[in-house]
């Protein structure tokens, strides 16, 4: 299953499958959760403040229970200051 992913304002180490603009399509097995995808990307715990699946926010505590399905789109934000 291929999940389109966008990392916004991510300045960590390069992530396999994600280009320098933060866009990529990640191939994951059926049944993968959002938490599993973040682990696969190796950005879990990297100070992430917001994740969206199909434009809906998924709280950090709910990421392990959110099973991804074909067609889902994931956006991952790093915490940003906007003053």
């Amino acid at each position, binding site marked *: 299953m291929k999940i389109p992913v966008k990392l*916004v*304002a991510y*300045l*960590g180490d390069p992530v396999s499958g994600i280009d320098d*603009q933060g866009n990529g399509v990640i191939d994951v097995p059926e049944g993968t959760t959002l938490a599993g995808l973040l682990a696969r990307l190796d950005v879990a715990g*990297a*100070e992430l*403040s*917001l994740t*969206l699946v199909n*434009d*809906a*926010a998924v*709280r*950090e505590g709910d990421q392990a229970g959110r099973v991804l399905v074909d067609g889902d789109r994931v*956006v991952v*934000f*790093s*915490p*940003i*200051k*906007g*003053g």
Partner: protein
Amino acid sequence: MGWTGKILRVDLTAGTCVSEPLNREWAEQYMGQRGLATKYLMESMDPSVDALDPGNVLIFATGPLTGTMAPTAGRYAVVTKGALTGAIACSNSGGKVGAEIKIAGWDMVIIHGRAPKPVYLWIADDKAELRDAGHLWGRSVWDVEPTIKSELGDPAIKVASIGRAGEQLVRYACVVNELHRAAGRSGVGAVMGSKNLKAVAARGTGGVTVHDPKAFMAAVANAKSTLQPHPSRQRLMKLGTHAMMDVTNAHGSLPTRNDRDVQFEGTDKLNVAASQKPHGPNGVTNLITNKACFACTIACGRIAQIDPEHFSVVNKPQYQGASGGLEYENVFALGAMVGVDDIDAVTFANFVCNEDGMDTISHGGSVAAAMELYEEGVITKKDTGGIDLSFGSAEGLVAITELVAKGEGFGAEVGMGAKRLTEKYGRPEFAMVSKGQEFAGYDPRAMQGMALAYATSNRGACHLRASPFASDFQTAELEGKAEIVRASQDERAAMFDSAGICAFIAAAVNIDQIAGMLDGALESDWDADRIRLTGERIWNLEKLFNLKAGLTRKDDSLPPRMFNEPLKSGTAKGHVARLDEMLPEYYELRGWDEEGVPRGQTLTRLGLQ
């Protein structure tokens, strides 16, 4: 220690500058800058006077850490009764002039009265005098700063001044220092203009002493050790606050076209990526570099340029070089909020706001309100002087911004701010304001904590008075938000706005580390609990000022659009602001009654009776 121990009291009416000792007891209770200046303001004026009356008092205030080696310790505040809001105003700025005033030997400058003719204040170490500013009146910030440095013969002088907007009493005029840093909000520049005070120029050759240098330096080293490697510092340095635009756009909290929408289709033309790649026929890149304030190792400031062939700058050489660039709040307000996706036009509007001293947030919100009046047919080109004020009109944005800066034509009406403008035309519901101050870049329907933060902010709608961001980006559920807003209001009031350091170290430096720096700098003992209690005292003192100024519970509110028009898109699609469900809990947490008035026991506990 941490303090110079001196206050400069200026009477513009009498033309006098007098030194007086710092009230140490008040400094213990209110820490400095925002808190201490509010105490001095309360003791120096009647809060019910009109903001533009000579009876209003204008204070330039530093904090105990301002001018020290603490990271980001270059902050100062301008505290007064706001010309935009009629409420307490405290506008905070970085740059270098705050530290310069402190290093010159002054903790605070308190300005009374109105000069009979334009003057500027010149502070050279322990000497202070009022000088004629007749030759500076009618000139921009960009013109005044180098002129003052030249005539006083010292390029190291730091200047805070008003542009033509402040002179014209544009209600959201600000005070600008070092060309493009601003004490931006609530119309503090209009108050300065009403006093015929064009500028404050300072040169200091002394320094700031601290109580326990060894402990202070250890605390500073500790703070820097966590700030330096922190990813938030890296992001602010490399991306600036500008990066927030992609977040709010995706989240659906980016105010667009006067909050008719919360996602802007032009984001890709205005975001960080757009600012970093060549565009236009000349391949000009908007972003040139970044810039830091005094003692700052973050350097979030942006320096930008405009395509020299862009329509906004043709035959205007003063805008064809590098100057203060796009940060989140100005790119939201001058871009998405007015529906403009032309990065050069947005940058131009920002340049003009800096050049003539206008708050970019309130200017964008006021132009957006004018655009909605125009779209709805309430005003036409007859009213605007021929300017097309359709949402998305880059030409309209450029033209009206120049007119507001000069106080000319329809610009004089937009310069009244969104509230007064829309009231004049009988459509006050088009003003996206709280306490008369335009919203910042977060729609309260998509961020419930921000809804409460805007409504209860003592200085009017503001994104910097509380910190509900993490909660709001995670969930729209209300549980816990009132306490998050209350607690963060108190913490921010003291540990950033009153200490003299920048809020942008928040992610990397915690309250205990900041307490350590204060403890080393000051004679008395400071810890996190004392910072929080001091913040609560400051918040309640500001509230008391507002009550005496005539504000009531009805001012702790939001425009009807926030309650009546559900969001059309984004993560909070279908939501409205649920302020009424949070406000009673917030008042209770604060120890206030149902009308939002502090109870007697609350005031007693805080030493405010």
